[in-house]
């Protein structure tokens, strides 16, 4: 992505299609104008596809699932990728968001204005999920690693059990008859919102704190990072977007029950995160898209699909243990100041190296 100037000149005679494609890709990846262009195209498409039925309804639903999965994956990436913890409870936050939003929209908001209140319901689901994340965030001050993994797992089971035991919200049968309010423009809006917020969060001061906790918690505390505040924020942001995704999911599936949000759902999200690569927004997008699309493409295989999928995952992990993107990030998702900083730092290093050499 960065070093090829010299190389391409050397190889210019021998370079084939692969090199050409690579150069084109680098030009695109380095061109910051591409991001607004892509956003505009996505914006137009998100209205155009459902309006003019550009693709069949089945593919439309898959595209919406991809959006929801991108939100889930990126939000889990904050905790599992950037903070270096291992959370298995993401489906629990998703369940909270799904239940809160669908109950609000079914029983609280006026039925006639439900289209206007839908985004409010989704945000409310996210906010409640963020508040609930305190249950996990407070133990995380003291415990780390595998014990925190257990706490998140316990959280998931508790959420599921509570939902199953309140008969007013359907108990184990869940809620049926949710309106289909999730449309492609909304999915697009919330996906972009989550990517934007998470990217800015990671490149803010708090985000640096999150990264420092991953590298070394004790050392970062010595550098006067307020680890408690940072952890609290990271869990809150992560579960907020899990709640948002859950709300979108509920209004797309039109049916939720505690059984939908079990460990297997969490495992799915985990797989998408590690498939794409931890600590990389581009990786999360890639992982979520590839996983969702592959599951659909392999559908003709029937039962063997679910046998093949984990096998593919194992092989990917064996040959690329850090996921598809690894820790790399697409330049579009790095703020311009950070790029400048990296450039300056490189130049300084070159000068220093030259000085020390002479």
């Amino acid at each position: 992505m960065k070093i090829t100037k010299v190389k391409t000149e050397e190889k210019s005679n021998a370079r084939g299609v692969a090199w050409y494609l690579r150069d084109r890709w680098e030009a695109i990846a380095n061109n910051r104008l591409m991001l607004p262009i892509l956003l505009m195209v996505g914006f137009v498409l998100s209205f155009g596809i459902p309006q003019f039925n550009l693709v069949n309804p089945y593919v439309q639903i898959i595209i919406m699932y991809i959006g929801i999965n991108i939100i889930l994956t990126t939000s889990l990436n904050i905790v599992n990728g950037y903070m270096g913890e291992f959370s298995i409870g993401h489906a629990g936050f998703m369940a909270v968001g799904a239940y809160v939003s669908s109950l609000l929209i079914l029983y609280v908001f006026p039925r006639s204005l439900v289209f206007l209140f839908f985004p409010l319901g989704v945000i409310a689901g996210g906010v409640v999920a963020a508040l609930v994340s305190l249950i996990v965030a407070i133990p995380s001050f003291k415990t780390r690693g595998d014990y925190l993994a257990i706490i998140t797992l316990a959280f998931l089971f508790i959420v599921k059990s509570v939902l199953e035991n309140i008969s007013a919200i359907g108990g184990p049968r869940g809620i049926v008859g949710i309106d289909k309010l999730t449309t492609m423009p909304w999915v697009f809006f919330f996906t972009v919102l989550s990517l934007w917020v998470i990217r800015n969060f990671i490149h803010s001061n708090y985000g640096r704190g999150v990264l420092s906790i991953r590298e070394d918690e004790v050392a970062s505390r010595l550098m006067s990072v307020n680890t408690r505040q940072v952890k609290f924020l990271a869990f809150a942001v992560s579960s907020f977007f899990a709640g948002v995704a859950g709300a979108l999911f509920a209004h797309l599936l039109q049916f939720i029950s505690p059984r939908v949000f079990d460990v297997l759902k969490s495992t799915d999200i985990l797989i998408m995160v590690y498939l794409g690569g931890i600590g990389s927004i581009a990786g999360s997008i890639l992982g979520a898209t590839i996983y969702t699309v592959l599951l659909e493409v392999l559908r003709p295989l029937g039962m063997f699909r679910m046998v093949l999928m984990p096998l593919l995952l194992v092989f990917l992990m064996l040959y690329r243990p850090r996921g598809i993107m690894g820790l790399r990030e697409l330049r579009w998702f790095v703020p311009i100041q950070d790029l400048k900083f990296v450039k300056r730092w490189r130049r300084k290093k070159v000068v220093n190296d030259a000085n020390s050499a002479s």
Partner: protein
Amino acid sequence: MYIIQQLINVLQLGSVYALIALGYTMVYGIIRLINFAHGDLFMVGAFISFIVATYLKLPFIPTLLISMTAVAMLGVSIERLAYRPLRQAPRMSAVITALGVGLFLENLILVFYPYPQSVPILLPTIVWNLGGISISFLQVLIIGLSLFLMLILDLIVRHTMVGMAMRAISLNKTIVPLMGVSVDKIISITFALGTGLAAVAGVMYSQAFPVIDPYIGILIGWQAFICAVVGGIGNIRGAMLGGFILAAVQIMVVAFLPSTYRDFVTFTLLLVILSFRPYGILGKPSMEKV
């Protein structure tokens, strides 16, 4: 009387949990890997016993031995093929690989047996009545056999050369090979022991609750993982203790409260225990170095 009857149930369920939790804790202790496929190996053990008992019509002891051997071989080969190449990789990619292996086993069995299967009962159904308390032969066998296996395991880990090597590897993995210990071999033995115990648990579980489906691995496996953590992961005696504690809580909740509260009470209690003893009951806090 009722309490004592429930205590026997606790011992029965607890020994199944403890046997599985031992595998989790041994593997974790030696290579710091949460082997999420372990619960599914337990399930494979149950299914192998089902296959052997149904198609080959063998009695209990050969079934148990075949299941143990097969699952131990499976466990060792999983370690060889899936975990060993990742030993230098970031820890979490190994964990995700383990999740993948677990899902693979589940869905593979699901392809062959999509519906719950009923396991033939291999043991005589004798029930003794001791002054109002009824104990079945199966319960005695489950409790006795698991206690016996745990004792053997404890002896192996504490008093043999292999056990000494295991403990050494869990303390410091870089020094041990310098002492002429083959780390790979010891890790293979650990996997064989741990997964063999899971197979025993699987066989006995399928005898006690004779309807099995490919998802019992998730259900019981995660519970057993929790036992291992409550006891202090990496600690063998802790895993046994954790198994019995979790079983006691679950059975007592079901005995005195509506059974749907089971998970809620169990996991809330788990949160409370972990907030007071963040490293489990018998676990020691690891020193953090900067």
